């Protein structure tokens, strides 16, 4: 490994080339790599965004497009209530998915959400109404299923 300082005179006998010792440089880099690898955390953090409507303006603007209210009952039961969607009135807008051994049946909820979202592409608003014993993980999974189906305006009701 050599580096030229450049622009050497012709008549001069002494070569102005100099050598760069790479070994300490490699040592420093190796130490850096070891430190960064040891201190690195390989968890890929993300976040589920939820918007809470505080005022009344947002509600009136979104009312025309309709919304889905999701009530989480005991024993993993989930009730979907569709509001203000043309063509769905009364009991047509109500769907209950019973739990599977006391847990939420996520396969069936995903099927319902995908079918509903493909039939009603304008509906983006979802309101989650958990019960006090609903697990945080269940809420996140439901949010993820709605987001996957492009229903991304999700709100959550406090108790």
């Amino acid at each position, binding site marked *: 490994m*050599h580096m030229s300082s450049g622009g050497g005179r012709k008549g001069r006998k002494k070569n102005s*080339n100099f050598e760069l010792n790479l070994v300490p440089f490699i040592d420093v880099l190796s130490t850096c*790599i070891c430190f960064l690898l040891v201190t690195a955390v390989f968890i*890929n953090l993300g976040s*589920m*965004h939820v918007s809470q409507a505080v005022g009344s303006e947002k509600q009136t603007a979104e009312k025309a497009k309709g919304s889905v209210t999701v009530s989480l009952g005991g024993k993993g039961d989930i009730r979907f209530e569709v509001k203000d969607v043309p063509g769905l009135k009364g009991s047509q807008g109500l769907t209950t998915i019973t739990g599977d051994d006391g847990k939420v049946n996520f396969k069936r909820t995903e099927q319902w959400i995908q079918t509903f979202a493909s039939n009603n592409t304008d509906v983006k608003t979802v309101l989650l109404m958990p019960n006090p014993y609903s697990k945080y993980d269940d809420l*996140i999974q439901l949010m993820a299923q709605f987001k996957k189906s492009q229903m991304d305006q999700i709100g*959550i009701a406090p108790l």
Partner: protein
Amino acid sequence: MLNNAKPLSNTHLGSALAGTSLIRPKGNKGGRSLTAGLMLTSLVDAFSILVIFLIMNHSNSQDVVNLGDKIQLPTAKDSQFIQQGIVVRVENDKFFIEEKPVQLPQLAATLKKLNESAEIAKKEGLIIVADRNLDYADLSPVILAGSQAGFTKYKFAVIRKD
């Protein structure tokens, strides 16, 4: 004494750097050299790229959220990258706002104070860090207090699943 201590002086192998030297190469002294040529430039390049990659990765998201000792975050697909915000951690029925323990009755007041004084980037919303098996009854006070404090966006911290 010290010359004898050099391990290379007792072997047929010479220094890799000395062998590749252009000024006074020591590699080819009368005959074939046993020196194994090592291209250190490419090694330095690779190391540099690795260091840059690790530094970039290092400062990505971990400085935003500190997970507690016993918190197992839920995993979720279709989640967004975590951004800045005021971090509220729920751990063993205790609430921590920006790593400071806060009693339940003071939750709304503390959040309101923070919302008024925080930088614009942090006003983006509340980052809620909680265990995946937590009951909603323990999480609901945070959402309620956040609403009272004027926060409209909540970011639930999750582990991204690809």
